[in-house]
């Protein structure tokens, strides 16, 4: 979720952590995590495919950001 978009789930998790005694938690944002296996040996090409997937399917870019980690 982009910083400026309200994340009610993150807020509730934040509040629950406070109730549990974790007073130094200042903010929680909740997101999604995908593990994608790509049959492509060239890392740059794989990243392009992953970017494409993120834009076309995995995120709604109006409200969400994405980050790609290649392994």
């Amino acid at each position, binding site marked *: 979720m982009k910083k400026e978009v309200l994340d009610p*789930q993150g807020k*509730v998790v934040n509040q629950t952590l406070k*109730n549990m005694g974790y007073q130094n938690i200042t903010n929680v944002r909740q997101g999604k995590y995908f593990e994608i296996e790509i049959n492509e040996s060239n890392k740059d090409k794989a990243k392009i495919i992953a970017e494409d997937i993120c834009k076309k399917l995995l995120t709604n870019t109006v409200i969400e950001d994405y980050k790609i980690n290649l392994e």
Partner: protein
Amino acid sequence: MKSSVIVFPGSNCDRDIAVALEKFQIKNEMVWHDETNLPKSDLVVLPGGFAYGDYLRTGCIASKSKIINDVVKHAKKGALVLGICNGFQILIESGLLPGVLLRNKNLRFLSKNVFLKVVNMENKFCLKYKKKNIIELPIAHNEGNYFANEDLLKNLEDKNLIAFKYCNEQGLVNKISNPNGSSNNIAGILNNEKNILGMMPHPERLIDPLLSGEDGSIMFESLFKSH
């Protein structure tokens, strides 16, 4: 017999269960989740619904509510605890029952009547099912796919801690009669001491012929008689 029904933001079966308890002369009080202490209760019920909008994981945020500490204390002292549907999910997230409830195998919200075999009738919730052990109750859930590893399943089977299994009309427990993909067709389980029951089906929804059946009534008769 005295009972408490815990009400969470998002509970929606709390009044149904209250009606059922009162019909069977169990004196009930509604308790808001933010309270610290339960009134004197022989039975604590965690009702169905969508506590906290199912945020993070179903039952997860509710399991950290203030009142849960006292529910755990009551349970340890031997009070009966019944978790129905979302209540079952909360019991699991609180660590009062083992295993986990995953999303239904077909990824659909299921709302229909199912047949159940009462597997364990030697507990205070199910004593009266001796007169009828193949029953029909409604389910209404999205995360009812009970999952446990092999060791836990073996433990549940060996110690006879499975209260209900999904079955067909004849009482046959098989793959076709499993609505949500639960391990071993499990619909409800008990703790070792058999004073905590978690179940996905809704007994409180079938307590009157006007509601098309009374198979749920038998549980409340058992509870009333057990005291």
